[in-house]
């Protein structure tokens, strides 16, 4: 962790931006801020940060909020990864941003240390799943009802291992604890989580698309 991770903070509340800025630890370097969709796209293209901390609800642009920022900014900043930050604790809300390409989501109630850790995880190419998002994934893929993928290529269901990992995350385990519990390496846990994230982004399961479409305000 020699060099700080460059971050652009996108949130329409300046109080929140400055609060978050003060809270993040020295691993993270905030290089830019933006308060709406259009300025966010510009800022990301200009600074090309490693990670963008992105509020789900944003004014401006076509009204698409955080998801719109991702879809417009990512072609102009190919290396940048997005981490959704939401005041909402309902995961349905975040599915739209995840499907647009965000690498995970955390709630705004998280402490500065938690946010910093999540930024580092995302910068390292891995996904960040909160317990609630894991629970949502289990629900959306019908894992609780016993549906299971037969092959790794299948996008609409989780494999047995992915389901185990998701269940442990939903129970509040960190990646390290999941690894210890399942006797696998942290890297393997991260691989599973990334695979689930990919399924979440690419799956055409009816529930997912429906939720993404009629995404409610919160």
């Amino acid at each position: 962790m020699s060099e700080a991770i460059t971050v652009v903070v996108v949130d329409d509340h300046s109080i929140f931006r400055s609060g978050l800025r003060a809270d993040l630890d020295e691993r993270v370097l905030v290089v830019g801020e933006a308060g709406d969709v259009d300025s966010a796209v510009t800022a990301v293209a200009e600074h090309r940060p490693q990670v963008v901390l992105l509020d789900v609800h944003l004014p401006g642009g076509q009204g698409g909020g955080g998801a719109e920022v991702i879809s417009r900014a990512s072609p102009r900043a190919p290396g940048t990864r997005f981490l959704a930050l939401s005041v909402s604790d309902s995961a349905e809300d975040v599915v739209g941003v995840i499907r647009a390409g965000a690498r995970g989501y955390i709630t705004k109630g998280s402490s500065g240390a938690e946010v910093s850790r999540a930024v580092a995880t995302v910068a390292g190419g891995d996904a960040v799943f909160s317990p609630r998002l894991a629970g949502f994934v289990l629900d959306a893929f019908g894992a609780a009802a016993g549906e299971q993928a037969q092959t790794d290529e299948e996008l609409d269901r989780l494999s047995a291992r992915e389901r185990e990992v998701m269940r442990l995350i939903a129970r509040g385990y960190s990646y390290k604890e999941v690894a210890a519990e399942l006797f696998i390496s942290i890297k393997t846990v991260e691989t599973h989580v990334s695979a689930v994230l990919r399924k979440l982004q690419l799956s055409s399961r009816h529930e997912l698309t429906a939720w993404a479409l009629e995404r409610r305000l919160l």
Partner: protein
Amino acid sequence: MSSIPAAPHRVPLLRPRECVVGGVSVGLARHLGWRVSTVRWLFAATSLLAGAGILFYAWLWSTVPVEEPVTDARAPAPPIRHRIPLRWVGVTACLVAAVVLLFVWEDTGGVASGLMFTLAVLLAAVGVLGPWAIRLWHELMAERTKRVREEERAEMAAHLHDSVLQTLALIQNRAGASSEVARIARAQERELREWLYAGVGTADSDLASDLKDYAAALELDYAVRFDVVAVGQSTERSSGELAAAAREAMLNAARHAGGDVSVYIEGSTSAVDVFIRDRGPGFDAAQVPEHRLGVRESIIGRMRRAGGSGTVGRGAGGAGTEVHLHFDGGRRDEQ
């Protein structure tokens, strides 16, 4: 010359308040002292003579008064009850008239009878479809009102979301997770959120929402932050033994561990699992003295008696405590 026999006492010609069509036949039969069926047959027979019966019936219906209600004068008179709704009488009359007018029209070819025929058919159609159309209209209006109200609510929610909820979130992470201020802000946020999105969620009697409520209550009293995640369809009732054991475990976590506590509820088709996990100093079931009944009785014992199982152990990596409650789906009919 014998004396003229006294005229039999005649019931006045009145239509009863409870009738099949107009009450004319019954009223006439009572007045004349005949049988009702006789009068009805006469009406039917004379109707064939160019509709004389029908015309006579209609004339009597419009001229003969309705009898007074028997109830006391202060109460409002009960409405006249028709066993065949007037609407259908009207529709039938219009259809009969239409058929008659059709014959007349074919005979004479007059414009007037043609118009009359069209009018009769139209009236019959209105009689049939009218009430349905009115109801449809009312439903449409109700729907619209509801939608407008929901839109207003969503607008207000959006506004509050952008201002108050953000501020509350900020207070929470600036004040530190388990401080007093953060707890109050969190409770306030939860309350506001519930109020804003009331009606969006499901009925509140299932296990998951019950435990969420309980978590909110505990957060007010203890320095603890609960993260309740529910997965799958939980058919478990909040009054069940599982819920009671889960609440006990949550209370223990709040009291002895504090900090972040995860509650995970998984309801599959065959079983219900609840995990309560804290990051406190840990807990060794074997070292608890005999007289401490909390865990042994209210969690493990309670689950066993109800036909499920409860285990208390160290959390992952030896940190904190994890309580696991399990119920098989088939055996959930308690007592």
